[in-house]
């Protein structure tokens, strides 16, 4: 199969993730959409790695996974603390500073 198809898939997943970030209202779901975008990046890296025949892209995919894991730790800590204080994880409710 032509590896370019995987690039189309990666772009599609990235777009779905980006649309989800913009549309969804629950902070956890928004965050999951960001993770989807990062995984789309991974798919693109691995595909390009296969096409170029060098390993850089696969190594970068590992780095991305570690970074995504660290981001989950930080992100969930923040979202959970907000949820405990407000009993809501909706990004619309977080509007104390709206002008």
């Amino acid at each position, binding site marked *: 199969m032509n590896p370019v198809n995987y690039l189309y898939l990666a772009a599609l997943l990235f777009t779905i993730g980006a649309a989800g970030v913009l549309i969804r209202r629950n902070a956890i779901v928004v965050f999951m959409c960001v993770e989807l*975008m990062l995984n789309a*990046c991974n798919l693109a890296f691995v595909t*390009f790695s296969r096409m170029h025949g060098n390993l850089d892209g696969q190594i970068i995919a590992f780095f991305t996974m570690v970074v995504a894991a660290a981001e989950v730790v930080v992100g969930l800590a923040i979202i959970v603390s907000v949820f405990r204080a407000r009993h809501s994880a909706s990004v619309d409710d977080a509007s104390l500073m709206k002008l």
Partner: protein
Amino acid sequence: MSTTAVHSLWTTAAVEPLNKIPAPHIEYTQLSPVLIVLTAAILSVLVEAFVPRKGRYVAQVFLSVLALAAAFAAVVGLAAGGYGSTKAQIAAMGAIAVDGPALFLQGTILLASIVSVFTFAERRLDPADHGHKVDSFAAEAAAVPGSEQEKAAVKAGFTTTEVFPLALFAIAGMLVFPAANDLLTLFVALEVFSLPLYLLCAVARRKRLMSQEAAVKYFLLGAFSSAFLLFGIALLYGYAGSVSYATIARVVDGAVVSVDPALAGTMGNDVLLLIGFAMVLAGLLFKVGAVPFHMWTPDVYQGAPTPVTGFMAAATKVAAFGALLRLLYVVLPGLTWDWRPVMWGVAIVTMLGGAIVAITQTDIKRLLAYSSIAHAGFLLAGVIAATPAGISSVLFYLGAYSFVTIGAFAVVTLVRDAGGEATHLSKWAGLGRRSPLVAAVFAVFLLAFAGIPLTSGFSGKFAVFKAAADGGAGALVVVGVLSSAIAAFFYIRVIVLMFFSEPKADGPTVAVPSALTTLTITAGVVVTLVLGLAPQYFLNLANQASVFVR
């Protein structure tokens, strides 16, 4: 058949070692500033784990300041050893550049961080709670605001000394960011400095709901933008087959002639280059807070604890502009004609947008946030020059701007009422009559923001606009001067409010800080005036430091 013979049918003796992976060559001396700060950050986590609660604060402050000072000494040593000019090189297997701009920006970040750590450590502003000194950070960040758990933590005198290791990790990431010489290092450094900042935003002692809200907004938008950056990196990797800056620059210039036919669809495909580059640029412009990627700035600046805001506003901007300069000047000089029009547009809307929206602000921290957006626009004007003078003027401007910002936010921490910091502008009315000194110091910072002569803001703006005009961006300079005039209006309005209006009866009081914040503010004022009155030495320094290594 003997066992050995049978065995040898499907195995082979490992006489020859398999292809050895060559051990990477790491230049520890050249990387010492980053390594010192990272080591201190790890030690600082250990302090958090093993030192008794009583001794932690002193240990953390001592360790942080010592490490930052040592790292600064290392930067000065490297610069004196010629690594900024003649011996500029690429270290750590091509991952990190050690050159003039990198060392200059690392020095700036470290100095700004030292004075920021002083404001982190300030414990004299709030009255003691249950006999324990308190700082700007929550007693126990994990406790729900107003809960029994939090009351118990306050009573026991807990403090969030974790802010020091977090700050050190963030600083280490910021040191790497402007020196990153491949896109992977760029991405990892971005995350290393962003993740601790998200957490630092969430731990304010007062107004914690706002602080957490700021953190959640910063986190979600920051993660969103770094995903864009990463996809851009993926596309650039697809374009060039490598993430190293030098290789990408060669492919952009068309120096790689023999393209594998199997790769003809991707390698050297301009669509990948342009889309990928636009996405990486969007990620970096988010970090510098340029319009249209600025939406997070006012909320995060307002909600975060003020010492953190000062640190973030200064150091993040320095690091992000360093990375942006390196990307545009090292990787994409072959693409200048493509990125210049885009950056023109971004710079114009950033300068005008920041200045115009700031006029309507009623909160001093939001006002400073919009002012920082406008300043990002002025800096972009220098970046667009695409000349050596452009680099040196941006370096100088960053140094001048970071100290003004940290000083201004440090003054904001002093003006307080019963609810903590009194950030609403109406409360600042008549401050000049009550505390002439504090108001005068703040006036100096505002004049520097406005770019009035004899302050560092003027020399910085002059250098940047001159570079932009020489670089063929005259129209941009006109817009810049116009928006400076708009911006001057609201800075002067605050000064008028402080000195020429009657103080209110229930106005805020000005807390008397300890030596730490005093030192920060003094450093801010001194740097502002010295860079305003005698900028030549520092301009020369920035000039010498303005050559990137390739």
